[in-house]
């Protein structure tokens, strides 16, 4: 079975999820006697293609329309390129960009899609659903299937290095009638503290209930000489600036100690803090997904235990 990996890259560098998919794809192609094929869309993509040598074959397509991600241009190109590769399984990153591609490709090519996958075999894919509370395994029917792969599911190292694959260029489709135009990219304003550089993070989630209560966790962060970070809803509520957000659409952090306070541990949060050395979770719900990957946990109420920690230092 041919395994097609749609390479994701950002700011002229291949993203880790691409290597994760290449590593997994290599294993699946090997097990099923197929070929691992990487597809790369970019502007002057050939240089980037050199990073994808774990694949047996690299197909790249150059266009100025690919200089920055564009859902429509990328989708159109993939719908033109992928069918010619005799795909068995098409791996797309379950990322902001990949989300715009996988489902569209599913409709355009009439191929089923399994999203949020964190485990894949030749005949099944497991989706991490319900905020990380339930996994759902899908049986894959015969015929091609698209799998959207959650970042952090597989080892990236397995998809690095490699041999001397065949590299071929394909022409870009006609882009004269695009309805989606890229304007510009904007970086977040740098904040007062850099949460990626802290040894200790006290990270707060929706369990804190309201903005006033943030004082409780801020006091602990101060005592610990660390900084206050948060899950997404806290930032969406504008209680903390974007620069404090940990996760898929926030920052990736690796502190020595990550104290998760009133955070459920949704997959999108996990993506940003899974590499912390020591994760301590405070959450009243014993079934909260965070306890599945924290090192230490307590189901005590944060309003009891956080002030008690502050007092104990």
């Amino acid at each position, binding site marked *: 079975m041919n395994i097609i990996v749609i390479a994701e890259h950002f700011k002229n560098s291949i993203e880790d999820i691409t290597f994760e998919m290449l590593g997994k794809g290599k294993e699946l192609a090997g097990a099923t006697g197929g070929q691992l094929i990487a597809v790369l869309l970019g502007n002057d993509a050939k240089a980037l293609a050199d990073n994808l040598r774990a694949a047996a074959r690299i197909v790249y397509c150059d266009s100025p329309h690919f200089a920055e991600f564009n859902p429509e241009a990328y989708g159109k190109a993939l719908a033109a390129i992928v069918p010619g590769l005799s795909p068995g399984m098409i791996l797309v990153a379950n990322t*902001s960009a990949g*989300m715009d591609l996988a489902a569209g490709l599913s409709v355009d090519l009439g191929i089923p899609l*399994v*999203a949020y996958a964190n485990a894949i075999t030749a005949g099944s894919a497991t989706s991490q659903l319900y905020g990380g509370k339930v*996994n759902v395994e899908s*049986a894959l029917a015969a015929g091609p299937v698209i799998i959207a792969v959650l970042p952090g599911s597989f080892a990236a190292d397995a998809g690095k290095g490699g041999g001397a694959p065949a590299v071929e260029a394909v022409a870009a489709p006609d882009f004269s009638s695009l309805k989606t135009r890229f304007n510009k990219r904007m970086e977040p304003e740098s904040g007062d503290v850099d949460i990626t550089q802290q040894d200790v993070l006290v990270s707060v989630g929706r369990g804190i209930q309201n903005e006033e209560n943030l004082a409780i966790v801020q006091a602990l962060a101060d005592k610990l000489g660390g900084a206050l970070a948060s899950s997404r809803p806290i930032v969406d509520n504008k209680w903390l600036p974007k620069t404090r957000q940990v996760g898929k659409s926030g920052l990736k952090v690796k502190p020595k100690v990550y104290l998760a306070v009133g955070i459920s541990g949704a997959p999108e949060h996990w993506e940003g803090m899974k590499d912390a050395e020591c994760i301590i979770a405070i959450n009243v719900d014993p*079934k909260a997904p965070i306890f599945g990957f924290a090192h230490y946990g*307590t189901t005590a109420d944060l309003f009891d*235990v956080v002030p*008690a920690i502050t007092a104990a230092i």
Partner: protein
Amino acid sequence: MNIIVSIKQVPDLVEELEIAASGKELNREWLKYKINEFDDHALEEALCLKETLGATVTVIALDGEDIDKVLFTAAAKEADKLVKVTGVGDNPSSHEAAKALAGVISGMPCDLILTGVQAADDRDGQLGVLLAHYLGVPHVSVVTGVSVAGNTATVHKEYGGGVIAEFEVSLPAVLGIQAARQTPRYVPVARVRQAMRAATIDEVGGNTGGVSAGTSISRMFKPESGAGAQMLEGAPADIAAKIVGIIREKGIKV
């Protein structure tokens, strides 16, 4: 301008989720449902656009658990029209829901369709993107900002690290909303009751046109909760002392 917002009920994740005896679905009997939080944001963004530019906001949903109440809540927030799509069955896949909605929406005046970016139970992908492709219109997902001028929407799409890309999209288009420009508004129950008396829900028959998810669920299971975490027990002060001990062990000088 005509804005359509699609909304859906999802199991409340704060509640315990139980897997049915079949092992292939959730036990729905005791499930508590709530509106998908991103749909609340999609509706909020639509209402903000209405306030700044003038628009008719139509809220559309497939029939399902407590859906009337959710639609009336939207009316209480000043949505103008409510549409319920019937006949699609319980728990349709994203492909089926998208196809049914596409059929209904293609017959409605529409410049902008706002969906929630995703829902916690969409095994076969995000409906917004599917819907756009069934309708043959452009889409952008993970959207955190929308403005409209003439026939063009300027939208902000969020990547990792809070990096944002700005796109211009010709309308009609589908946008998968991650966060509205402001916290979704709250309406008191009294206003919802009022809306129940004043507003009407248009019922329209839906058709999934033979599409399906294309794969079947073989098994549902819970990830081993607590597999990794060593649980700390005792009174808050004892737990606090243990946590301070762990932090010190990690070389943090406090």
